[in-house]
């Protein structure tokens, strides 16, 4: 029996924000789930469902009102760096004044990688994301898709065992999107654990071992695609997703 604790475990997370006129907006309600070693878990949800809030809580950028977050069974503190976690935020744009290589070297420096190893690591990472031929190019001269690849390369600095990606394909064209999905599949095969948020059903369906549907801060379902379809009595993920969204809104 596998007794290893999950890579990520969320226990009863709740988060509210103070809105305008002192309204309280509930972003997450009692969110609990686990992500196991070598698994890709995708969180689906419409805009404003609480996906980014969930990621911010996992990453320690926001403090939950209740609940706790565990990485490998260890309780995580708020506002502390997560050195073994690669992170790519939504709408991320790398520093335009640096070249691609300088940017990755900068992140190697932040991760405490010695200079003599950083250069080699940078070349390897840029090769992984297909940016090695653009290493000397200034980031301001890159397309959005290339910028996103640089973002991915930075997430891999320090060889983290867990990757957390917020809408990794947002703003990419179909080719860029497909390449990103292929990249995620390759990473899963290399043994990485990946948790990501998206509102694009097809990509989630293609890569995820388990899929969660988050609506209005509530995790409606989290299971494999087939079980999800069975539970919602749907033909495809699109139908299942719509049913859950409508159900939550009614």
């Amino acid at each position, binding site marked *: 029996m596998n007794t290893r604790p999950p890579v990520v475990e969320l226990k009863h997370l709740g988060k509210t924000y103070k809105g305008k006129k002192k309204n309280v907006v509930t972003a997450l309600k009692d969110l609990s789930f686990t992500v196991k070693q070598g698994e890709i878990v995708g969180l689906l949800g419409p805009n404003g469902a609480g996906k980014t809030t969930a990621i*911010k809580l996992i*990453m320690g*950028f*926001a*403090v939950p009102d209740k609940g706790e977050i565990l990485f490998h069974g260890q309780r995580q503190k708020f*506002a*502390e*760096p*997560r*050195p073994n*976690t690669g*992170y*790519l*935020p*939504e*709408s*991320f*744009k*790398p*520093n335009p*004044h*640096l070249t691609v290589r*300088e940017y990755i070297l900068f*992140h190697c420096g*932040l*991760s405490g990688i010695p200079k003599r190893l950083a250069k080699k690591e940078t070349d390897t990472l840029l090769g992984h994301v297909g940016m090695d031929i653009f290493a000397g190019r*200034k980031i301001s001269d890159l397309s959005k898709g290339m910028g996103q690849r640089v*973002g991915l390369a*930075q*997430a891999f600095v*320090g060889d983290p065992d867990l990757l957390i990606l917020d809408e990794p394909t947002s703003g990419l064209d179909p080719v860029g999107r497909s390449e990103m999905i292929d990249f995620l599949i390759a990473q899963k095969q290399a043994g990485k654990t990946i948790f990501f948020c998206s509102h694009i059903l097809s990509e989630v369906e293609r890569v995820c071992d388990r899929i969660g549907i988050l609506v209005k801060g509530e995790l409606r379902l989290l299971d494999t695609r087939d079980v999800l379809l069975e539970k919602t009595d749907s033909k495809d993920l699109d139908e299942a997703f719509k049913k859950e969204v409508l159900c939550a809104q009614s």
Partner: protein
Amino acid sequence: MLQESFRSKLFWGIVLFLMLFFVFSVYISFLSLDTPARFILNAGMAGLSLVCLAVTILFGLFSMYEEKARFERYVILNRIPRAAYLMGKFSGTVVIQALFAVLTAAGIFFLTWYFAGEVHYGIFAAAFWAILEFSLLMAVGIFFYCLGTSFPLNAMLVLATYVVGHSTREAMLSFVGLGQFGSQIHYYFVKVLCVVIPDFDFFNFRLALIHSEPIAPGEILISMGYWACYLAAVLILSSVILKQKDI
């Protein structure tokens, strides 16, 4: 940060501004009777303040807000503690402030020598005090950033702090001198302001230095002590605030 700065158009914009200021200071020195060096030095000191202020706001603070807008601070804060991030931003800005201060001092030194035939090494000591003054202002800007202010508001607050920070002593003197002016509440209000807002008059040695006027060593020690204590307090407070906040 220095590498980034050299590639920024803003950096070269400030360099151009500095050059224009040098031309201006030489031009007005021609209008003077027998004291061109004094004119160049005084105008140069005003230029030094303007350049350091521009670096503080347009480089230091603006780069922090740019990083926020690009969502880049998240990936940085995933690797280093928040306090280290603030310290990095602070020290990076101080390096650029120092670079511009030395550049300005060297320019004024050359101009006074070339156009007025006088040598004033005190200019470099004046640049040192400008670095202390504007590093404190940068720390105040970081504090406002940690409170969650927008960039325009932060820039205005920093400007206001700079102006008020140069007037608190005068405000206190007016109370003491006039005696009956205002109520006790006003008096304590100004007194609190004097403690809370940095007193930039502690660094007002610049004109004395360039005109070779004597300064008591005790005054220098007090000013250095004030700088170190105020800076440490503001940076520690900023780190504590940022650590408690959702970002």
